[in-house]
């Protein structure tokens, strides 16, 4: 997992609570300006948005049912009837790639949701729960961070019996420590600031404090991490399916499709190529978006990256 930032000084420059209307309008203008000056990242954003659209609506526009088997028309090259050709069982590759977007991206979303939620919970508890709780939870997190995520996910997935659900659970379990560490830092540093102290003196409850004042500040940095993680998680998830520890055939998951396609690549390169390209584009798109966000959200970090 790539590190975003853990520098408290930078945090001092940010404002509590939400943004006002004028701030939001100005923000839109700024976004457009930023996109103009960063054409590569802008393309990345387009790709990422496109992939999300495909995940949401792909199945509606898919020309065929991804499970429609037709052995008479197997391994046909790309043509007018099958834009991406057919696979070893005569299924339309384009339709499978479109459905696969939903499978892959929704699984990625679930993983990140679980990992971020668990991580946020742990991190917040650690930051606000006192010295002992902090030590214990952070020690746990450090240990979690010291394990290689891919290998751990493979082992866990095998332990859970394999399959897509097992893979999702496994990767989530490997991923939450990164979020825990990040959130703890953000929360701990925000919690030390004056306005929080003031609020506490005024009698605002701990929970309200966390929910209304502390977390919202952490959210956008968390969001940057999430965006960067989408690419990593997608690659890990499809990697698990590729080696057989994740989604299994005939599920139209991109990693599983690449694996099936590699078996027949000498006769039908398209079966592996198209899901692979889709996966690559997804990873690149979201990475670029993550880079862009990271560059924009942190002025100091921006200087370091030389934009």
């Amino acid at each position: 997992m790539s590190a975003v930032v853990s520098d408290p000084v930078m945090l001092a420059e940010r404002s509590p609570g939400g943004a006002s209307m004028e701030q939001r309008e100005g923000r839109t203008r700024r976004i457009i300006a930023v996109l103009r000056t960063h054409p590569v990242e802008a393309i990345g954003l387009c790709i990422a948005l496109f992939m999300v659209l495909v995940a949401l609506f792909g199945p509606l526009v898919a020309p065929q049912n991804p499970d429609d088997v037709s052995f008479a028309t197997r391994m046909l090259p790309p043509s007018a009837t099958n834009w991406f050709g057919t696979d070893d069982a005569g299924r339309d590759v384009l339709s499978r790639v479109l459905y696969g977007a939903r499978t892959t991206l929704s699984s990625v979303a679930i993983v990140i949701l679980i990992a971020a939620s668990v991580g946020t919970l742990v991190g917040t508890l650690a930051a606000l729960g006192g010295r002992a709780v902090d030590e214990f939870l952070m020690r746990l997190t450090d240990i979690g961070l010291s394990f290689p995520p891919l290998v751990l996910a493979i082992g866990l997935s095998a332990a859970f019996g394999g399959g897509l659900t097992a893979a999702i659970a496994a990767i989530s379990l490997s991923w939450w420590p990164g979020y825990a560490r990040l959130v703890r830092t953000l929360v701990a540093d925000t919690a030390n600031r004056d306005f929080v102290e003031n609020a506490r003196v005024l009698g605002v409850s701990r929970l309200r404090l966390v929910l209304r004042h502390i977390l919202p500040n952490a959210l956008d940095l968390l969001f940057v991490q999430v965006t960067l993680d989408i690419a990593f998680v997608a690659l890990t998830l499809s990697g698990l399916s590729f080696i057989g520890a994740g989604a299994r055939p005939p599920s139209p998951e991109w990693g599983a499709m690449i694996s099936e396609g590699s078996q027949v690549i000498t006769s039908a390169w398209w079966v592996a190529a198209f899901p692979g390209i889709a996966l690559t584009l997804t990873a690149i798109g979201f990475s670029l978006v993550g880079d862009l966000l990271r560059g924009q959200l942190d002025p100091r970090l921006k200087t370091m990256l030389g934009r």
Partner: protein
Amino acid sequence: MPTHSRGLLTRHGLRYLTAAISAGSLSLGLVISSNSLASASVKHASPSGTLTIATDEPPQTFDPIQSTNSTVDQMNLNDYNALVQYGPGTNAPLDPQLATSWTISPSGLDYVFTLRSGVKFHDGSSFTATDVAFTFNRIAKLGLGVYTELGPFVDAKVLSPSKVELVLSKKYSPFLDALSRVYILEAKLVTAHLGTDEGQSWLATHDAGTGPYELDSYVSGSVAKFSAFPGYWQGWTGHHVANVVYKFLASPSAQQEALQSGQANVAMNIARTALPAFKKNASFTVNVSSTLEEFYVFMNTQYGPTKDVLVRQALADAYDYKTHISSILGGYGEEASGALPSAMNCHVDIKQPTFNLTAAKALFAKAGYAGTTLTMNYEPETFEQADSFLLLQSDLQKIGITVKGVPSTFPQTVTMLKTPATTPNLVALYAFPVDPNPNEVLYQTFYSGFADGKGYNASQYANPAYDKLVLAAQQTTSTATQCADYAKAQQMLADQYVAINVSNPDYVTVLSKSVHGYDYYVMHTQTEDTYNMWVS
């Protein structure tokens, strides 16, 4: 140089001529005498070239006790011999190998084998009856692997260095055929490495045999190398290869790539769709051979919707047999005719169900299972199984039946077969008979004693009337009686729709034109008779 040596009849010429004639006669004499020596002892000739075989699965072990596993058998055929052995090709007879002759007592309980003399193990020790007795007693002691083939075997006794007796507790007519899978170990060598598991750990990576090739090296999951054993009892006259190399490549594409680039000269698992190109290519031979194999979709007769014979009949009617042969097998194979593979002894033509989705739907409704969901187990790496699942799932979907796929590896399947409740409704599985005796399929696959994970009875079929038939057939030596029993057994399986009998697939091997002597080893599925192959 002397200037006056013109032609052979000069003084120098004569000297040379004499020398040449003497040398020639001397060598001729040597050749003749060495040949006559050789006929009495080991022949010396020179095998040459390397056979590089691309195959999909690495062996689980090199211990021949697991020779019923075809990946192990594939290795064992190189470095071991059995008492009796089949040659390659269909209808191959059972020939003497390490045994030269045998007698069976009238009671059918005692088999006495006279053993071949002059046979050496790879480390130079001589082969005797002690080695045979040790091998058999070890199998009985461990109770696994090839043990299931030996039936009522109880004891092996050394009668003399060249005579050994195998004792059974009951008559068992399939016994002799099964001996083709019992590879003889060197007693002294294995005893020295018994460890805590009767030598299984040691034999997993070592060679203790008398076979034509010795195991040189094995890189786990990648490459196995064998080289010719100079002292092999059968000798090396004629054409043979000096080295046999197995490359384990799971992907058919990888095998194709290896074959086309010359990195392999035999490929065992080329995809059917790639065959037309190889057929047109003059540098390759495509060998298509019928087999003893049969592909089934077994139906759980003891649990779930398939317990009802109407449901089983419906499923048998819902299978598109013709498409399976034409599109999945690419025409390389035939529709099955009953549960016994057509090439086996005592086969009778059984009327197979025809593909009729309307009839199937009606039967599901009649049984009260319209719109139900079924689970089907298959191995995703085996194309015929994976495609058969897709075919059945797609066709059943048309009549409102959902089939949920359970892709699993063979070890996982074995675990699932432990009880009827954990066995899926449908199990895609092959029968790989080790010899043409109908016992191999009708007993080993459908006898009730092999249900509940004790064997391959994936239908969990338990019918006392059926059991009686197959047990009786084992007890008699009369072929006519056997075949009568087996005919009734085949009909019973058909009447009760115990399995969907899908196909008798052909085996397709693609070889480089430089490889000769290949004939598919029907009695040893998915292996090669490397000793009789050679490379030009």
